[in-house]
């Protein structure tokens, strides 16, 4: 028996089970996490059916079922959580209902779920449509017909207003600021009169006229919007909602699966292409996607040459010895420094010192308002580049170490200099390793939040770092970031419960972007590997 036992242990069988078990556990954990994010994130966009319950005391509640749980302390009893929405009418988005109190459940097909520009969803029955207070249609179906006919127009007006506010007036403000700074620049030079000042004054007048024209246009558009929808919610409460505020109207209970799928796709598209609304808890996340990708790209452009050159010096030129070993250990340890420390360094060095100096030298007219002396996408990218440079150095160095000595000697023996050998033989061969380093760096940078919070990320950026105003690329601008968006929506928003699905959707999106960036880099690396495959040389 003991002999058998001994054989059992020495055969290594238990160890195989142990290793397999460890792998399985890891996979289950990761798989569960991804499944949770995917399930919750994708669920946000599905138009759920609306349940109307009648309670024992005669009260009626209408809403979407969010979850169902056992009531603590009461065995066999369940309660459901209804998203009743209509925050402006009831004050709360959610209601708990004990199932024992429910006497009747129904899914009425005339319940509308209305997405609007403020106060979250509106759930109720459409009663009538009014034009400047006068009823033009009453009853569900005729009102709906009017709404359907007039919505596209209202939508286009809404977008036009948005465009005027954001772009046309924004451009005028930008221009005005430019002129103000030009005045200030002249003032700093001691010029208070003369042709230059006159020329600037002359530019101001037409701007003011343009501004007036735009505000007039705005007023006209706004006044033209007189239609409103009257919606009746539970308890006889009604809401008179201007049609201009309506973004979408759906009747989930009357929709087929196909219609729901179409609505689902449309909402996913809105999510990735629209700006956020209502303190980021509604609408899309396009600026955050843009900011995240742009920051990662800028970081990659900075970190790759920096890390590769440093690695080349360490491996190819530096005399190997205790000092170089110490440098190598230091670089490796740098990767373990908490990211917030890099953030603090970024604030102190990049923003206050470098940015402050740039401001004093080149943007003195704007002071005390900082231009580069405050958080911005350039400083955030530089901070992250600093954070990820050890990864690139280590990966490149390992790649360099793996290149056979024979290959370098072959090149040198063909009368190539060391530089020619490095550029023509070593660099192409080490390319896959460089990309491996870049992949790791990008994955780390895209998911990093802490250092960004103090170097340039904001909850809501008024404009993207790239736009139509010269010089098109505005590296000093603050930006939005998906990682910070998750934190902001999930923990800093006024209505955390309502925003929770948004958190999952944003997380899913961030994961997706990281995966896409990685896949791109990996496919590039594989192509290079095929091209410069190192055989057993």
């Amino acid at each position: 028996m003991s002999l058998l036992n001994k054989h059992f242990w020495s055969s290594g069988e238990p160890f195989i089970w142990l290793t397999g078990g460890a792998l399985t556990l890891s996979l289950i954990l990761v798989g569960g996490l991804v499944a949770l994010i995917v399930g919750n994130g994708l669920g946000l966009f599905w138009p759920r059916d609306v349940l109307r319950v009648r309670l024992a005391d005669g009260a009626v509640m209408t809403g979407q079922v969010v979850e169902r749980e056992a009531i603590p302390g009461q065995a066999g009893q369940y309660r459901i959580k209804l998203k009743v929405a209509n925050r402006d009418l009831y004050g709360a988005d959610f209601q708990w209902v004990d199932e024992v109190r429910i006497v009747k459940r129904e899914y009425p097909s005339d319940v509308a779920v209305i997405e609007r520009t403020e106060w979250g969803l509106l759930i109720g029955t459409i009663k009538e449509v009014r034009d400047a207070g006068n009823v033009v249609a009453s009853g569900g179906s005729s009102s709906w017909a009017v709404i359907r006919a007039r919505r596209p127009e209202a939508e286009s007006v809404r977008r036009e207003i948005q465009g005027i506010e954001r772009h046309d007036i924004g451009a005028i403000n930008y221009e005005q600021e430019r002129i103000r700074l030009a005045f200030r620049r002249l003032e700093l030079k001691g010029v208070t009169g003369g042709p230059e000042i006159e020329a600037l004054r002359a530019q101001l007048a037409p701007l003011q006229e343009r501004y007036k024209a735009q505000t007039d246009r705005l007023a006209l558009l706004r006044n033209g919007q007189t239609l409103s929808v009257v919606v009746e919610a539970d308890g006889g409460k009604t809401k008179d909602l201007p049609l201009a505020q309506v973004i979408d109207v759906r009747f989930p209970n009357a929709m087929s699966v196909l219609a729901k799928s179409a609505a689902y796709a449309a909402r996913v598209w809105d999510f990735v292409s629209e700006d956020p609304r209502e303190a980021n808890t509604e609408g899309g996340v396009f600026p955050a996607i843009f900011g995240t990708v742009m920051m990662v790209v800028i970081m990659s452009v900075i970190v790759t040459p920096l890390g590769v050159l440093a690695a080349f010096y360490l491996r190819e030129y530096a005399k190997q010895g205790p000092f170089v070993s110490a440098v190598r250990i230091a670089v490796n340890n740098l990767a373990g420094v908490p990211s917030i420390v890099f953030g603090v360094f970024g604030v102190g060095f990049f923003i206050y010192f470098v940015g402050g100096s740039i401001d004093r030298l080149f943007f003195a007219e704007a002071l005390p308002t900082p231009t580069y002396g405050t958080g911005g996408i350039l400083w955030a990218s530089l901070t992250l580049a600093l954070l990820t440079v050890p990864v690139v150095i280590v990966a490149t160095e390992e790649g360099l170490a793996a290149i056979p000595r024979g290959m370098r000697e072959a090149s040198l023996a063909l009368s190539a200099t060391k530089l020619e050998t490095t550029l023509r033989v070593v660099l192409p061969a080490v390319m896959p390793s460089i990309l491996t380093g870049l992949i790791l760096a990008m994955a780390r940078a895209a998911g990093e939040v802490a250092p960004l919070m103090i170097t340039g990320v904001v909850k809501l950026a008024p404009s993207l770092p790239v736009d139509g105003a010269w010089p098109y690329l505005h590296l000093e601008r603050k930006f939005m970031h998906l990682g910070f968006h998750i934190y902001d929506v999930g923990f800093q928003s006024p209505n955390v419960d309502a925003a929770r699905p948004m958190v999952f959707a944003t997380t899913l999106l961030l994961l997706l972007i990281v995966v896409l960036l990685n896949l791109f880099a990996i496919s590039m690396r594989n192509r290079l590997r095929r091209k410069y495959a190192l055989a057993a040389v």
Partner: protein
Amino acid sequence: MTGTVEVRRALKEAAAIGPIMETPMVEIEHLSLWYGEKLALKDVGMLVPKHRVTAYIGPSGCGKSTLLRCLNRMNDLVDGVRIAGSIRIGGTDIYDASLDVTELRKRVGMVFQKSNPFPKSIFENVAYGPRILGAPSRSDLEAIVERSLRAAALWDEVHDRLQESALGLSGGQQQRLCIARAIAVEPEVLLMDEPCSALDPIATARIEELMLDLKNSYTIVIVTHNMQQAARVSDYTGFMLLGELVEFGVTRQLFTNPREERTEDYITGRFG
């Protein structure tokens, strides 16, 4: 057996035995080399005749590869190397301070023990040297590549797949590609550091045939473990032991009638 005088005498003797007069291509005098504190070559002196195959034989670690790598100054790459004595190739002192090492390596090509083609196409491998030396036109390059591959007896096997990766070739083909790459810059001397040690007998035979062809245009110095190979391909052989050149002479004479007892012991397999 150290100074040039002795070597010249040996060559004269050799010429007396053989049918021809030789012109020296490489002249080595009183060459000593240290790796740090360790003496690796001890006062070596010899001549390498032009357009002949000269072989170095000897047990592992005897310094034959080190001697070979002195001829194109590949030892410069090793930290802590110190050299005394002189080497002249075609009359130029190659350790002269004013000498451009890349210029020397243009004149002295090298083929390594392990085939080491670049991870590039076959064409680019052969074109690498000419490209480094300048940028010849595409048609010139094509001519050079074809000529070199033909000289290396590889053209017929690869002419229809020049753009494919060199790493797809067999071991013997790769080594011949390395030879083609080395002769593409038309060196005067071709150094071969155990070029067949990783090859099978058939591939080895092809490379040996190739060496016999190439010696009409190039001066070849080969280091080999394989005494039969030295006997087959070389005109002159030097036997090295513990950093010393023990004996140098016409191959047939060295193998059949060695002057030194240590040489005889080695070639008869009594040690080494």
